[in-house]
């Protein structure tokens, strides 16, 4: 039998198991969604070639354990019939994760799934000095843990009060968790430095007297493995995708150009100091 190229297999989502000749096959999942057709193909492969079960990974991925090396091509073909592709491992852009976002969730401020698909198309599998993770969460409840990703995107809202729609009911003052709103009975006052752009005033206002302009809060350099570091937000809320992608392009390019092999984004930023990176990101934002 020909020599097995483990590097190529790992790149294609085949994770070598302890058991000789067997792989746990990682699949490509975007934003945590799979179609019924996908799931049927996965189930069939797990039953025919694996051990009849799948493993849900910590980042919304699916792996089919116990795929034998000799079955790899047959498995790929069977999965392709159901529209399922192998995922990736190693030093490249990994699964783009997302919560259900504004399409499904009452709390969502942004359409996370559409954005995850766009990020996936733009970056998935891109070769880099080390792994690189994107996560998209729809609001500040942060179900998808944006800040643990190399680039995390969180939905937010820039809010403004519309006096003539307001019935001065007082709901928003209590809905705000930051104590940023005060209802005087004739006026509603917003303390902008306290506002975290969560949009809860918009969501709770019974007469739509709070208007919210949705956008993206981006964090950089999160880690949640051997080392733990919370990604940092260095820009204000971004309203348009064009600017967002300029910023994410700048971050990933900076990593590609400056990281040592096997060095995570945060460690590159620590080694080189953050000021230069921040300048690049601000330039991309302001362009």
């Amino acid at each position, binding site marked *: 039998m020909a020599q097995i190229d483990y590097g190529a297999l790992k790149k294609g989502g085949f994770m070598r198991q302890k058991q000789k000749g067997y792989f746990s096959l990682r699949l490509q999942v975007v934003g945590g969604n799979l179609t019924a057709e996908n799931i049927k193909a996965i189930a069939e492969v797990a039953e025919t070639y694996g051990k009849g079960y799948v493993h849900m990974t910590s980042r919304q991925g699916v792996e089919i354990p116990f795929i034998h090396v000799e079955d790899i091509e047959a498995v790929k073909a069977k999965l392709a019939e159901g529209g399922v592709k192998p995922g990736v491992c190693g030093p490249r852009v990994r699964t783009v994760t997302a919560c259900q976002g504004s399409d499904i969730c009452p709390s969502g401020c942004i359409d996370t799934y559409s954005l995850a698909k766009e990020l996936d198309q733009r970056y998935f599998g891109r070769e880099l000095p080390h792994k690189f993770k994107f996560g998209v969460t729809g609001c500040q409840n942060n179900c998808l843990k944006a800040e643990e990703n190399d680039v995390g995107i969180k939905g937010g809202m820039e809010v403004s009060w519309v006096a003539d729609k307001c019935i001065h009911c007082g709901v928003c003052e209590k*809905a705000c968790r930051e104590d940023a709103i005060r209802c005087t009975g004739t006026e509603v006052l917003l303390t902008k430095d306290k506002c975290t752009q969560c949009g809860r005033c918009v969501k709770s*206002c*019974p007469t739509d007297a709070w208007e919210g302009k949705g956008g993206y809060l981006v964090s950089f350099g999160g880690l949640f493995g051997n080392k733990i570091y919370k990604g940092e937000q260095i820009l204000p809320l971004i309203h348009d995708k064009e600017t967002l992608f300029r910023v994410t392009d700048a971050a990933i390019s900076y990593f590609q150009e400056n990281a040592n092999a096997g060095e995570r984004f945060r460690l590159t930023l620590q080694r080189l100091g953050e000021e230069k990176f921040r300048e690049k990101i601000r330039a991309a934002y302001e362009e």
Partner: protein
Amino acid sequence: MELAGIKIDETVDITDKVCPLTFVKAKVALEELEEGEILAIRMNDGEPVQNVPRSIKEEGHQILKLLDNSDGTYYLIVRKAED
């Protein structure tokens, strides 16, 4: 009963419940009213007053006022919408 100049048809006290039963109890009380009738919901400060008004709005009912009772509780005054 009248609160803040609004005639109240029914009241419900949800201060004995915690989330999510606060909302469930309020929802059950609303279901027993006719369209257009007014319910006053007594709730605790903190999580209930942060979240219950929004849930009532998402059900489509009309919120008229939130009154601070100055004893750590609030009255949320709601007009029942059609089903």
